[in-house]
């Protein structure tokens, strides 16, 4: 009886120490670069880059497996920032020169199924069951999650409309 208790106690203590040592020895350092990159990404986990979320995309970027142009909502600016961060040349020509888009719901087609607003990562869609939904354009990242799910295809992706608030002079045409 006492032998059994002693053996088990010793076994427990030894294994505990071993596990503790292994935990500190074999610890995986979170790459600080990854964290910094993750901070730069939009953080909406939209998955347009093909990775399951922004943190995985950041891991891929830090290890050089992914291209800096991977993030459509971030656009050119983000690609350039990432390129500076990682010290690589951004090949922006490969990047689709797509203007940032936002979703718009055509209310005559909306059936109020709530599928889109449940999926929206930024809570940019408001509505409730059997009520017409609407997009808050200031909060929309253009991730297209709602666009893909809508059963009546009533969501359209539109470029951000130009208004007096965001219009500015174009660059002069002729190079000086």
């Amino acid at each position: 009886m006492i032998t059994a208790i002693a053996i088990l106690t010793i076994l427990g203590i030894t294994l505990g120490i071993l596990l503790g040592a292994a935990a500190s020895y074999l610890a995986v350092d979170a790459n600080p670069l990854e964290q910094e990159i993750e901070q730069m990404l939009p953080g909406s986990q939209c998955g347009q880059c093909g990775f399951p979320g922004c943190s995985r995309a950041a891991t891929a970027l830090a290890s050089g497996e992914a291209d800096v142009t991977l993030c459509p909502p971030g656009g050119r600016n983000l690609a350039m920032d990432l390129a500076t961060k990682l010290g690589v040349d951004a090949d922006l020509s490969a990047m689709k020169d797509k203007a940032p888009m936002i979703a718009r719901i055509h209310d005559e087609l909306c059936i109020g199924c709530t599928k889109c607003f449940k999926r929206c990562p930024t809570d940019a869609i408001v509505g409730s069951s059997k009520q017409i939904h609407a997009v808050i354009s200031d909060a929309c990242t253009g991730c297209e999650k709602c666009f893909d799910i809508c059963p009546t295809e009533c969501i359209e992706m539109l470029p951000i409309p130009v208004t007096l608030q965001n219009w500015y002079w174009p660059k002069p045409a002729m190079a000086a």
Partner: protein
Amino acid sequence: MISVNAQKLFRIRGGVHPQENKHATAGCRIVDAPIAQRLYIPLQQHIGAPAEPIVRRGMKVLKGDLLANSQGVVSAPVHAPTSGTIHSIGKYPAPHPSGLPVLTITLEPDGEDKWMALPPENSDPLSLEPEAIAGQVAAAGIVGMGGATFPSAVKLNLRKRYRLHTLVINAAECEPYLTCDDQLMREQPDGIIEGIRLIMRALQVTKAIVAIEANKPEACSSMTKAAAAFDEITVMTVPVRYPMGSEKHLVQALTGKETPARALTADLGIVVHNVATANAVHNAVRYGKPLISRVVTVSGGAVNRPGNIHTLIGTPVADLIGLCGGFSEEPARIIGGGPMMGQPLPETRVPIVKGSGGILALTAQEVARKQAMPCIRCGSCVNACPCGLLPLEMASRARIGDFDAAVDFGLMDCISCGSCSYVCPSHIPLVQYFSHAKGALTEQQRRQHKQEEIRRLVEARTERMEALKKAKREAMEKRKKEIAAKKAAEKAAELEKRSQAGA
């Protein structure tokens, strides 16, 4: 001419002497324009948040009725310029180079031009409290009428945050062609002087300087005469040099003090208001009339009979040009404001707004647009820049899209006066580069801001989802426990039954 300069003036850096071309309208008496068929009143005629309409389609309004309320601190209300019916509230082209539509109230005048119930004339407006003056100015929708269109009431409340001592009335009118302020000073000096005294009272300052460029001797003598009774108001002539009417440069010319970069003249204890604004303040505080009309100079080589016109806000530009005899030839460009800082107008159906001081229809010869050539680094722009910047360096950075480098060269201190573009022998559109760069930077900031806000939203959502999940899990566990407890109770009851039966 009466000698008016008792004080010493100071030199300002740079500047240019463009051809004045004021002769076409100088001395043209202000004529009242007839009421247009339809008035288009944009809800954003000022810097800040657009006004919120309080009228509906088909409603009848009287002259001076409130059409749209101001939204927030930096905003201004909009009033009905005449009596009539609200025809619609919708999008209409803005008097803006982009020609983009902006929310606009369309008013169909009934021709009676009947005022709303005006308060009785305040015969002693100067006895009002400073807050009351600022409040009436805010309610009258008065904005800076020199073109900047910053809500004036906000500037009247500056005394709460700064120690002020001087009011400067900007009557330099340094832009070529424009004579509307000149003419206003010649014809209505007493109203302006009362406006100045009201602004002084609102700001609680003891001194006011009316600064007029030396090319307006008539306005100067008229103002001096009107101001003679008031020791605290000095009329001063300043040398003719563009951009003398830039508020920071005007203050420097008058006091020798330079406003620090990105600071306000209020940091020096000085507030600058435009002369037409002073007149509007007089009308608002003495007669209770909101800002619904202004004097506009219609000029340029392509206009048959240039003149100064007192017109209702919302009158289409085409109507004013028609009133001035139409075009003598096809204009090469139509400009809202002066030729140096004004903005090209895409079409003539756009309306006159609170900030429109001029409508210029320029001939091809006047525009003299030439092909831009490479920069030869002659440094003319550096000599001309009144802010002491290096326009050539800023433009070369802006051209390759390196906006941060342009900022390092002082892009944010540029006042877009156009002196550099004016002197450039290579005809490089320098100011357009700067406007482009400033716009692109603002856009970047906006995007950055959006990104941050979205991050916040995502975090809030994740948190909420976690909380929901947790609540669900807890509910589930609770139910499980309940079921288990129920089962246990049932079992116990059965056991008891059995044991009772056994017994």
